[in-house]
């Protein structure tokens, strides 16, 4: 693990997907695969071989925490850095997400210009 290049991004809201993908690709220079649901992420994650995963918390079907739990059981993903993306960033909520195995939490709404550096900082964390 030397540099952050491949990011799997799980988010159901198309507007936010589009902005985050552009920000991560154009500003951060990352290779990004977007999945619109937890179920899709479970199907795609192993083949994509991400360096890091960004997970929306509130999604229909499998939510972020359920998706994380299932991803952890897949080959090669048990220790992969994961950050949740959510508007619920009260200290107790952030602490809770970390106990679920997230390395950190990115507050929504995020700043598109700063997202890539924020993600990199978490990955290096």
């Amino acid at each position, binding site marked *: 693990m030397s540099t952050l290049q491949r990011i799997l991004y799980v988010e159901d*809201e198309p*507007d*936010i997907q*589009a*902005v*985050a993908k*552009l*920000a991560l690709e*154009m*500003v951060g220079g990352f290779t990004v695969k977007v999945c619109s649901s937890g179920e899709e992420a479970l199907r795609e994650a192993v083949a994509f071989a991400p360096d890091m995963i960004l997970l929306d918390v*509130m999604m*229909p079907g499998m939510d972020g925490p359920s998706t994380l739990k299932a991803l952890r059981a897949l080959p090669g993903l048990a220790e992969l850095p994961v950050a949740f993306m959510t*508007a619920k960033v*009260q*200290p*107790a909520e952030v*602490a809770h997400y970390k106990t679920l195995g997230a390395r950190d939490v990115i507050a*929504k*709404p*995020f700043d*598109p*210009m700063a997202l890539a550096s924020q993600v990199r900082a978490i990955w290096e964390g």
Partner: protein
Amino acid sequence: MTTNMEAFQALLGGMRADFLAELPERSDSFEGSILTLEKSPGDREAFNELYRGVHSLKGSGGTHGLSIITTICHQLENLLSETEARQEFSTAFATRALAYVDLLRQVEPAARQAQPNFSAIVAELETLHRLRLQRRKAGLIAESSSVMTGLYQKALETLPLQLTVVDDGLTALARLLHEPFDFVIVGRELKELNGLALMIAVRAAKARNQDIPAILVSSKRGSLPDQARFSATLSRDQKLAENLVAVVRTILPA
């Protein structure tokens, strides 16, 4: 890199314009769901569609730099959560919810101005917020221990309260100086600014909340500075939850 950033900013601008163009359609959809809920309060599908839509718009509005949309949706989302908890999808609910939708409709023309001015929308939002708070009393919990915060929230969950939690004294001070609250629960050993200093600052600021009822929770005994003007001091003991409920009841008007 500069070219990339400029291209990115241009793309963001285009996406924001598309987003604004879709806002009237989203508002129409919300209105339809609200009216459905008024007629059929038990319609889970209508509620879920509305809640999900408002939550999504809250996120995308902020992502496009339109924090006014996030604020409107945040308040509407809270109204939906509270109404669902009490199962009170009445005409009064619909009137209040549609007031937020009307504000959403005002965002698009305002945002398209050369110098967007949302002050009229913000003023109306404050009015709606005040009306909502009149129904539910607003309390601020300033406590650095998540265990204690959980205990307060659990103890007070049956009272008609809207509780906000912060875990350090400086954030608590900022919130108390700028937002309306009906009471505050203060842990003595707060990070950044301890509970006593926090309340002395609030009392001295001659600003919003300077006379707010304040409850101190402390494991220490001893005299307290008069300037802090605590309404009650509670010990961290086995009766804390029970005592807290009793004190909050006496502070709140009937």
